[in-house]
């Protein structure tokens, strides 16, 4: 991989030399390298990169079900039919929980990203500083409107108004993060933007410098409907075994999901291709395998969803898998764009200064393993509770009790080790 990037860099640099752009690239490249934190990365950048891609994908699933869930809620509340009303409430519930998960899962990709692409992120955020802060304010307002919609779900018109306001705020929040990510891809323009071409210092933080509508549609709007469509197929699949659930309603919801996923998937594919065409030619993106793999992923996913139309419940898991693969390829493509953009100026995360240490990665690994055990236990119990008909109590099996005991034990052990190490260090340094 490293060699590939080096050859790629060499190719881009020679291309620039021919085009007479070397001096300019040198300035931007020097600036980017100077901005990289002098503390260096505490671990191999490629690991940060991979974790960033994977966690971004997880984060986006719930971003999509937040926005897509609200789209279905709003549309459902406009219909008089009982099944639409019921679906509207179900997708509202989905959106409400999804926002929480999207927030919590969104922390990780941004964290890993900031270790290796700090020049991109901090600059772009500061170019539009007020907007970046307002992201938090708008998200807070939007989320409270969604909770408002949830508490008024038995008054459809009120709940719908709150859902509309809620989704508008989420789309606005998506717009802000889109702008910050998009501006970050154009380091050659940062100084020009901030200084109005050398005439000022735009320290107010109120400016927005770049936006790409196709990217916004491809990364946020269309996938929201498509992914929520797949979730409705899973909704059908999951609740089918529950005797107190209406099978006709579930089948209808599953088919609606499959149809929505297909139409929105086409929109996703078209906007994705249109976005690719807007990327400047000197990035060399259009001929890249990562670009076309992302397109292929969407095409394959569309194929699976297309074949799910007749029996969405049966095809729910294959659709989920196909959708996950497509989203992963898009996450890789999105990361590749950063590599391609920064390579023009000789910036490579693979040559990021390294201050390697192993204690804190070990802490992460230990915590991750602890977390996986307890997540497995907690989510399994939630899964079983959801399958239990209303009014009944799920009695855990002996195996489940053992898993529960193991989870408690491992969490306590984690805490003992964490505090114990701390005590040893403190006594050694200050005792």
């Amino acid at each position, binding site marked *: 991989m490293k060699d590939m990037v080096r050859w790629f860099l060499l190719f881009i640099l020679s291309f620039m030399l021919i085009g007479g752009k070397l001096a300019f690239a040198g300035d931007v490249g020097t600036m980017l390298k100077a901005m990289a*934190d*002098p*503390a260096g*990365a*505490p671990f191999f950048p490629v690991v940060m990169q991979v*974790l960033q891609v994977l966690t971004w994908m997880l984060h986006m699933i719930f971003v999509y079900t937040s926005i897509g869930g609200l789209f279905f809620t709003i549309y459902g509340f406009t219909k008089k039919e009982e099944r639409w009303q019921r679906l509207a409430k179900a997708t509202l519930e989905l959106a409400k929980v999804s926002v*929480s998960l999207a*927030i919590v899962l969104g*922390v*990780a990709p941004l*964290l890993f990203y*900031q*270790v290796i692409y*700090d020049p991109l*992120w901090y600059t772009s955020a*500061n170019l539009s500083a007020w907007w*970046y*802060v307002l992201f*938090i304010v708008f998200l*807070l307002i939007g*989320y409270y409107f969604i*909770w408002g919609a949830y508490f008024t779900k038995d008054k459809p018109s009120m709940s719908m108004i709150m859902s509309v306001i809620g989704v508008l705020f989420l789309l606005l929040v998506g717009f802000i993060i889109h702008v910050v990510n998009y501006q970050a891809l154009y380091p050659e323009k*940062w100084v020009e933007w*901030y*200084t109005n071409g*050398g*005439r*000022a*210092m*735009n320290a107010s933080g109120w400016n927005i410098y770049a936006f790409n509508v196709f990217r916004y549609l491809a990364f946020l709007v269309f996938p929201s409907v498509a992914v929520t469509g797949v979730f409705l197929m899973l909704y059908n699949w999951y609740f089918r075994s529950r005797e107190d659930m209406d099978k006709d309603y579930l089948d209808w919801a599953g088919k609606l999901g499959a149809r929505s996923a297909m139409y929105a998937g086409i929109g996703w594919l078209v906007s994705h291709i249109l976005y690719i065409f807007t990327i400047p030619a000197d990035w060399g993106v259009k001929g890249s395998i990562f670009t076309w793999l992302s397109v292929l992923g969407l095409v394959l996913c569309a194929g699976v969803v297309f074949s799910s139309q007749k029996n969405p419940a049966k095809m729910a898991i294959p659709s989920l898998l196909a959708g996950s693969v497509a989203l992963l390829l898009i996450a890789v493509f999105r990361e590749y764009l950063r590599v391609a953009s920064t390579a023009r100026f000789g910036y490579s995360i693979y040559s990021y*200064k390294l*201050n390697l240490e192993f*204690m*804190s990665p070990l*802490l*992460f690994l230990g*915590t*991750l393993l602890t*977390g996986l055990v307890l*997540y497995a236990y*907690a*989510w399994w*119990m*939630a899964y079983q*509770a959801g399958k*239990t008909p209303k009014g009944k*109590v*799920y009695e*855990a099996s002996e195996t489940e009790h053992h898993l*529960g*005991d193991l*989870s*408690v034990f491992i*969490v306590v052990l984690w*805490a003992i080790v*964490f505090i114990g190490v*701390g*005590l040893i*260090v*403190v006594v050694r340094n200050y005792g």
Partner: protein
Amino acid sequence: MDVLGFYPMWYVPVVGSGLVIAIIAAIHVMASHTSVGASILLAYLATKAYRENQPQIYDYIKKYLLGLLVFSYVSGSITGPGIWFSATVVNPRGISALIHNFVWVWAAEWIWFVAEVTLVYILFYTLGKIDQRSWLRLAWIFALGSWATMYMIVGILSFMLSPGHEKWFTTGNILDAFYNKNYFPHLLERTSYMFAIAGTVGLAIAALMKKDLPEKVYKDIVKTLSYWGIGGVVFGLMFFAWYVSTLPERSHVIIEGVVPLYLKLPIMLIILVVLAHFVLAAVRPQAVRFWMAYPIYALIFFAGVYPEEKIRETIRKPYVAGEFLWVNQIISRDVPAKGIKSEVPVIDQKGLLTVNPFVPEGLKKINSQNEIMAGKAIAILQCSGCHNVTGSTGLRPFGQKFAGMTDPNAVYGFLTSYLRDNHPPYMPKLVGTDEEIKALSAYIAHMISKGGSVSAKIEVTNTPSEAKKEVQP
């Protein structure tokens, strides 16, 4: 090209960009301390319900969990990243320094953060739907997981104040940085107070449910919360005393000489009010009222958490991270273990405007035409983290600090003797070339002569190509 890694500067006139962090951080601390404290209190109450066979306690727990979801988890989980977002634009190099040292600690915290958020939903939705033993286990995992997030963040916050030991600068060992002198008292102090915070809002919820719960259950809940609350306040005070004893010398100077009484006094008063409230509730549970408990909870925010956060931010000065990065984002000393070099010599030699890539070319070489604007740019870049540099109101304003000083030479004398050559322990040294300090003096004298308030805009008169010619020898 001499470039240091500065980012575009964001300047918020009057109140300062730091206030944005302070507000978001205070909301987060309130919400997170409520939820972490509540997670342990609720797990304890659930154990009581299970062991003493008091199922009505679950009704109370369910209501509290809903309250947590709507208030603490929405505002807490958004304002948590919110502190990070605001720090990104207020002090990008500060947050970057922390992330590049503690990324894995934050990543580990994230594992608990995910556990905490998913578990609060799972607990809410599965209460009464799975057997009590399983639910109780989940409740304790939730409690420990929530508390674990505090284990993590406290180490980073303590490092921001000080690595605690000279050793870290040469070892660069993360354990030395994280488990610093301040860590345990800080963790225990926050842990204690969180019970008082969660207990106070717990009393408000109990008061709302007084009619729905059997008298014995109600009294049991109120007394339990009160005992935990009293313990929280008493232990909190003890650990606070320990915490203060671990502060660096400069922080003591700041607490005594810089932190105003209007920030210190409300904290002491609210601690007394909260303690009195718990004692009253423990002695006479029936006397607890929502209209009393909830305003006290709100007062904890305004009189306790907000001033505490402000003081904590202030006593860290002049640094923002690890006693090597100043609050104005200039690296002030070498950290040999990390290969970090002080930027002060380069800035003093080349000039702050020259090394910042986001300063227009037309300001890099100072002349009589651009002197005022160059001075304003220096003020924004170097001083606006702690001062309103364009007005007479708000955050430690220049208009007041330099009141009456309309002579540039007088300002220059003050800046060089008081801030450059003999700077106070809570302020960074004034850096830059002599020419730049003269430009800053000229700007300050100019703004004072204009009535102590000028526009925050920075405009350049000569074209970029003219400027480029001037800069090049």
